């Protein structure tokens, strides 16, 4: 559907370096990365607002590397919506059709239909200045969709919205993708947003794409420390691999963790991560076969309201453990208390 092939371009402080990836038809593709990683530039290259210095871009089989934006059949949604301030809602939506010389009557009829699909038909005559963030976003989406683009490019569309509207718009975007079959390329710096929306995630850093995969893959099996840390991995340890009979261990100082047997060992140095939510905390020892069980003392407790994160020091390393408020109260955790933490060998991801 959309294909980047070794695309490079720099603009001001931002750059893209040899970026290659492919977005499939109907896919929800999320580009995730920190501020300044070049995500927006990538999207603007796809839209034709800038042209690559090297490499090529294809959309739906056509080479569009040097095509102007108006020939690309893309829809673009900016973070702050970029609605035309001198037009009302319906005229904003109808813009693309009017430019394409669709008759006034038909253009407005089709725009009204699109506005209905997005639940903004009742705002048709309103000026765009008085709309809320969520409403503006819907107008921007309707305006893009009415021209029937091949792919919808979204530049951090949720980051300017409040929490509640974010939830609603996230569902709306997912619905557009699922029900209307729209191919989406969505740029964000929010790990949570990427996890909830993406079919596949491309993680970007310093103008390069460092990992592409499903949310599950990227989240649980990061390929680099950058990806692990950016996706919020808190229990990250540096060490090496040892083998004892059939069992394989990850060793870091006093810490000795059983890891999956099929692991490719032998590399002198590697890193391990264990997700805080994969760890079980209990007041007593539970013997179980495929498990790492460690004893340690609770050092810190952060109360997030709905969930609680406890820091337990075992074998000289800190393990963050995520538990529900309910378990927190049942366990009566407090700093200094001795507890047992356990997790499956399979929960240890090595890279």
């Amino acid at each position, binding site marked *: 559907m959309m294909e980047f092939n070794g695309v490079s371009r720099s603009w001001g402080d931002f750059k893209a370096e040899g970026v290659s990836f492919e977005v499939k038809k109907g896919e929800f593709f999320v580009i995730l990365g920190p501020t300044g990683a070049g995500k927006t530039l990538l999207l*603007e290259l796809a*839209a*034709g*607002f800038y042209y690559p210095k090297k490499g090529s871009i294809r959309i739906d089989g056509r080479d569009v590397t040097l095509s*102007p*934006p*108006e020939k*690309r059949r*893309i*829809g*673009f949604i*900016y973070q702050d919506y*970029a609605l*035309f*301030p*001198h037009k009302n809602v319906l005229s904003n939506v109808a*813009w*693309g059709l009017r*430019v*394409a010389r669709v008759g006034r009557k038909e253009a407005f009829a089709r725009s009204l239909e699109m506005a209905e699909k997005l639940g903004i038909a009742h705002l048709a005559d309103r000026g765009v200045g008085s709309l809320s963030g969520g409403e503006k976003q819907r107008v921007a989406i309707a*305006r*893009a969709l009415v*021209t029937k683009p091949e792919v919808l490019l979204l530049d951090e569309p949720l980051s300017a919205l409040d929490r509640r509207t974010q939830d609603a718009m996230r569902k709306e975007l997912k619905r557009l993708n699922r029900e209307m079959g729209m191919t989406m390329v969505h740029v964000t710096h929010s790990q949570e947003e990427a996890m909830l929306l993406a079919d596949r995630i491309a993680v970007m850093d310093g103008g390069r794409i460092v990992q592409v995969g499903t949310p599950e893959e990227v989240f649980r099996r990061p390929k680099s420390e950058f990806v692990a840390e950016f996706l919020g991995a808190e229990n990250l340890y540096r060490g090496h691999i040892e083998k004892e009979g059939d069992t394989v261990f990850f060793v870091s100082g006093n810490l000795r963790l059983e890891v999956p047997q099929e692991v490719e060992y032998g590399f002198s140095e590697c890193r391990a991560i264990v997700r805080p939510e994969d760890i079980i905390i209990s007041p007593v020892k539970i013997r179980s076969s495929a498990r790492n069980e460690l004893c340690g003392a609770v050092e810190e407790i952060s109360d997030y309201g709905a969930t609680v994160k406890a820091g337990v020091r075992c074998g000289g390393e800190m393990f963050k453990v995520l538990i529900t408020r309910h378990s927190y109260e049942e366990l009566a955790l407090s700093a200094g208390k001795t507890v047992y933490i356990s997790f499956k060998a399979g929960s240890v991801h090595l890279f």
Partner: protein
Amino acid sequence: MKSGGAAGAWFRTREPVMAVFTLLGTVAILFVALPVVAMVMKETPQSIWETLKDGSVRRAIYLSASTALWATLASLLVGVPLGYLLARKRFWGKELIQSVADLPVVIPHTVAGIALLTIFGAKGMIGAPLSEWGVRFVDAQGGIVVAMVFVSMSFVINSARNGFEAVDPRLEKIARSLGSSRAGAFFRVSLPLAAPSIASGAVMCWARAISEFGAVIVIAYFPMIAPTLIYDRFLSFGLDASRPIAVVLVLICILLFASLRLITRRRSKA
């Protein structure tokens, strides 16, 4: 304390430095307002009516207004595109171009007249070929317009540049993603949005053009525009003879300027 709170705060926050500033600011405003008001107060409705009956006064005012209008239109034609380029494009020598656009503000008015006469005079590089076609600038309306464009065009260029700079370039990008060409994006998005700023620049341009004297008299003492007529009467008959014309002209300028500003401001709010 409860009811006097706001008033008490008012007194306590009005620090001495603000009083000094208010005093100095008042001096500034009075320095501008007082001469104009005093001049207008010296005349009576009768003396103004007498002045308006004078055909040469009416002709001079009409000539001033119409040549200034032509100068404004010419400035818009070439100044708006230049303003757009300065706002949107990065190119080599941009700073120099911007300085050249601002140059007329710096050049003494009579010097501007001499410079224009060098080019547009009967022996000048533009004046000479055009005079064979019967187009004259010296002591002709064309010369007045040329002088006015020279001193007033920078208002249009700068207001257009500011207007276009205030238009989010992403609106143009979005317009193009929706199928507009570059020209379509300009005429349908940027120009309408920059229009209020350009309009108020055009008003300033017109006002600057109508107020010019030094550059105009060097190239065209005749036909007399209003400022020239006032000077001519002042030289020939003294202050009392020239003042009624000055009052008529200043009232027209203030009236036109205020109403044009009101219109362009209302537009920009709507």
